[in-house]
C-alpha cells in the first residue's frame, strides 16, 4: 500500500528554498563574482582603478611569495591529514574497546576544542608558547628537558610546525566523532566472526575497521584538505604570518596584499588563485582515490 503526500505547489517549494538560496547568493556567489571582477582591475579602494585584464593573474603565476604560501598550506594540510585523521582513527578504535571507562566523557572533552573560536585557540596557544611564563617551556624545564626549549613562534625553521600543532589539536574531535559513528555502523557480526578466528585488537582494526571505513575516510580527507586550504584565523592571531613570511598561508597572503598593501585588485586575484588551487587539489586527490575502487 502506497501512501502519497499531496504534492506541494511550486511556489511552496520555492518559498522553502528561498532563504537558503538567498544566504548562499549573498555570502558566496555574489562576493565570488565581485572578486573575479575586482581581480581584473588595478583597484586600491574608493574610486575604481584601470582595467588591466589578466595581468594580475600573470603576476600571480610568477609571485614567489604566493607559491611559498601555497607550499605552507600544503605542509599544514599534510601534517593535519596525518595528525588529525591518524589520531582520530586511533582514538576512535581505542574508545570503541570494551575496557574504556567514561566513554562519553572522553568524547566530549576531545570534541570541546572544535567548538572553540579559532581566535581563542590562537591566543591560548600563544600563551602556552610564551618564552618566560608559557606552560610548554615550564613543563620542559621541570622534567629536565630545558635543552629542548625553543623560540617556538620566533624561529622561521619551526614556526610552521608550532602553528600547525593547535590546528591539529583543535580538529581531532571532529574526525573522532565522524569515525566513531561510522564504526558503530559496522555490523558486530563481522567482529564476532573475526574473534572466533582468533583476531586480536590490532588485526581487527587493520583488516576490518579500516576497510569498512574507507568511504568515511575519503570524506574526512576531503573535509581536512578543504579546511586547511582556507586556514587563516589561528595563524593570524598567533604570528600574523611571521616571522617574515615563514608562516604565511594563502589566505593570510591575500589579506596582506589586500589590506596591508592596499592592492585590492591583486588581492582578489590571489583569492581566486587560492580557490583554483584548492579545487585542483581536491580533484586530483579524488581522482587518485577513485582509481583504487573502480
Amino acid at each position: 500500500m502506497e501512501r502519497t503526500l499531496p504534492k506541494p505547489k511550486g511556489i511552496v517549494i520555492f518559498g522553502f528554498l528561498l532563504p537558503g538560496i538567498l544566504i548562499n547568493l549573498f555570502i558566496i556567489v555574489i562576493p565570488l563574482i565581485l572578486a573575479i571582477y575586482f581581480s581584473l582591475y588595478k583597484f586600491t579602494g574608493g574610486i575604481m582603478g584601470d582595467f588591466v585584464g589578466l595581468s594580475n593573474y600573470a603576476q600571480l603565476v610568477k609571485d614567489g611569495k604566493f607559491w611559498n604560501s601555497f607550499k605552507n598550506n600544503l605542509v599544514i594540510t599534510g601534517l593535519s591529514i596525518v595528525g588529525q585523521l591518524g589520531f582520530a582513527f586511533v582514538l576512535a578504535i581505542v574508545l570503541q574497546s570494551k575496557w574504556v571507562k567514561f566513554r562519553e566523557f572522553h568524547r566530549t572533552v576531545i570534541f570541546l576544542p572544535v567548538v572553540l573560536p579559532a581566535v581563542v585557540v590562537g591566543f591560548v596557544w600563544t600563551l602556552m608558547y610564551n618564552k618566560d611564563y608559557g606552560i610548554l617551556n615550564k613543563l620542559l624545564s621541570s622534567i629536565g628537558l630545558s635543552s629542548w626549549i625553543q623560540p617556538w613562534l620566533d624561529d622561521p625553521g619551526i614556526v610552521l610546525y608550532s602553528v600547525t600543532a593547535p590546528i591539529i589539536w583543535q580538529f581531532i574531535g571532529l574526525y573522532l566523532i565522524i569515525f566513531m559513528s561510522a564504526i558503530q555502523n559496522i555490523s558486530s557480526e563481522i567482529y564476532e566472526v573475526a574473534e572466533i578466528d582468533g583476531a586480536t585488537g590490532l588485526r581487527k582494526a587493520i583488516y576490518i575497521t579500516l576497510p569498512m571505513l574507507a568511504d568515511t575516510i575519503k570524506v574526512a580527507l576531503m573535509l581536512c584538505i578543504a579546511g586547511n586550504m582556507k586556514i587563516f584565523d589561528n595563524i593570524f592571531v598567533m604570528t600574523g604570518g611571521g616571522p617574515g613570511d615563514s608562516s604565511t598561508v594563502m589566505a593570510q597572503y591575500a589579506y596582506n596584499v589586500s589590506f596591508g598593501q592596499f592592492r585590492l585588485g591583486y588581492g582578489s586575484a590571489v583569492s581566486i588563485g587560492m580557490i583554483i588551487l584548492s579545487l585542483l587539489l581536491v580533484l586530483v586527490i579524488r581522482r587518485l582515490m577513485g582509481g583504487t575502487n573502480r
Partner: protein
Amino acid sequence: MKRTYKMLSAVLIGASMLLSACGGNNAAPSGNAAAGSGEKTIELTLTNSWSSTSTQAVDVVRRKLIDEYKAENPNVKISEETLDNASLKTKIKTLAAGNNLPDVFMLLGSDARMFLDNGLIMPLNDILDEDKEWKDGFIPAAFNDFDVDGQIAGAPIQMTSTSFVYYNAEIFKNVGYETFPATWDELIDALAKFKEMGITPISMGNKDQWVAGSSLLSALGDRFTGTDWFNSIRDRQGASFTDQPFIDALTAIKQLSDMGAFNSDINSIDHTQQRTAFYNGQAAMFLEGGWAVSSVVNDAPKEVLDNTHLALLPSVNGGAGEAWATAGGSGWAIALNSNLEGEELEAAVKLVKLLSGEKAANMSAELGDSSGSIATDYDKSKSTPLFLEYLDLLEKSKMTPVYDIHLAPSIIQVMNKGLQELLIPSSGKTPEKLAEEIQEAYENS
C-alpha cells in the same frame, strides 16, 4: 483592503530600516529631536585607539576630552569604537577599502595620500584657515606627515620621536658606562657585557612589525644615510635602497641580532610587552617613541624608574647623518570623512578641535607627553623628571622622517616583514637580500 494595508506597512517598515541604516552620514531626520531642548540629535561615529585601560597620556587625555565633549554637547551622540593600535590600522584600511570610513577617526600618516587621492577624507585646509588661532597653535612641523601636495589630511594629535633609547643607568654603570655609550662600538661592547651578565641587552617586541621599523631602523638608517638620502627616496630623485649606506644600516641591525642582543621571543611579543623585561630589571634598554614616557612613569617600579634615562642611538663610523637627530613626526592625526556636511560637520569639527587643540596639549604636558599643538599653560611641577628629560632631548634633536609614515604601505610591508627575519639570527636573511627586496617593492609601487 486589509491586505493592501499589510503590504503597505511592510514596505514602510522595510524602507525605514533602510533609511536608518544609511542615516549615519546624513543629518538625522527632524522628527528625532533631543528631549528638552529643541535641538536635533546628531550622530557621529568615532574610531580610535584611546583605550580606557591605557596609561599613556595620549589616551588618558583623549578619554577625558571625549567625556567633556559629551557633557557639553548633549545633542551629539558619539558611537565610539576603540581598538588597539595594530587592529586600528587594519580596521581603518579595511573600512576604507569598502568606502565605509567612520565620520571621525585616527589617521596614520602613511595612509594619508591614498585616502585623499581616493576622495575618502576631507582636506582640512579651509577649516584650518577659518580658525587661525587653532591653526597657529599647532607645532609647525606637525603637519609635515599629513601634508599631501599642500592638502592637509588631518589634525595631528602628537608630535614626538618614534625612537628613543630608554635605558637603565644602574645596569650600564655595572659594566663601566657612567653615561650612555656615544659611539656604536662602545654600545656593542656594553651589550656584549650585558650578555655575559645574563641580562637581555635590548628588549624588543616586534610581533606587530612596526617597532623595528619605526623605533630602530628609521633612526639608525638616518645615522648611516643622512636625511638627504631619504628625501631623495621619497621624492624619487634617484636614491635606491641598495645604496651602500642603507645596506650598512641593515648590516648593523644584523650585527645586533647575530650577537644575541635581543630577547629570543622578539617576534612573538608586542611593544607594550617589551617594557616588562625592562621594568623587571632583566633588560638593560628598550627602544620606543616618546609616547612610552607616560607609561614608564606610571608602570615602572620606583627603583627602575629612578634609574631610567633617555638617550638617542649613538653615532656610527663614517655615517652621513647628524648625531643629534632621531626619527620623529606626528604620525597620527584626526581625519574627517569626506561625506560629512551641515550640522554633522560642525559637530565633528568641534570635536577635532577639542581633541587636537591647545587644551589637549596642556593636559598632555602635565601627564608627560607632547601633543600636536604647543602646550601654553600647564603646571610644570606636575611633570616628572623623565618627562623634563624627554622635553629637553626633543628640543635638542632634529626630527628625521619615520620610514613607515612616509613610504607607501606596499613598501613598508616588505621592509617590516624583512626586518622581522633579519632580527632572527638563524634566518639566513642577508642585508643585501633584504635591500634588494625593498628596492623591488619600491620600484613596483
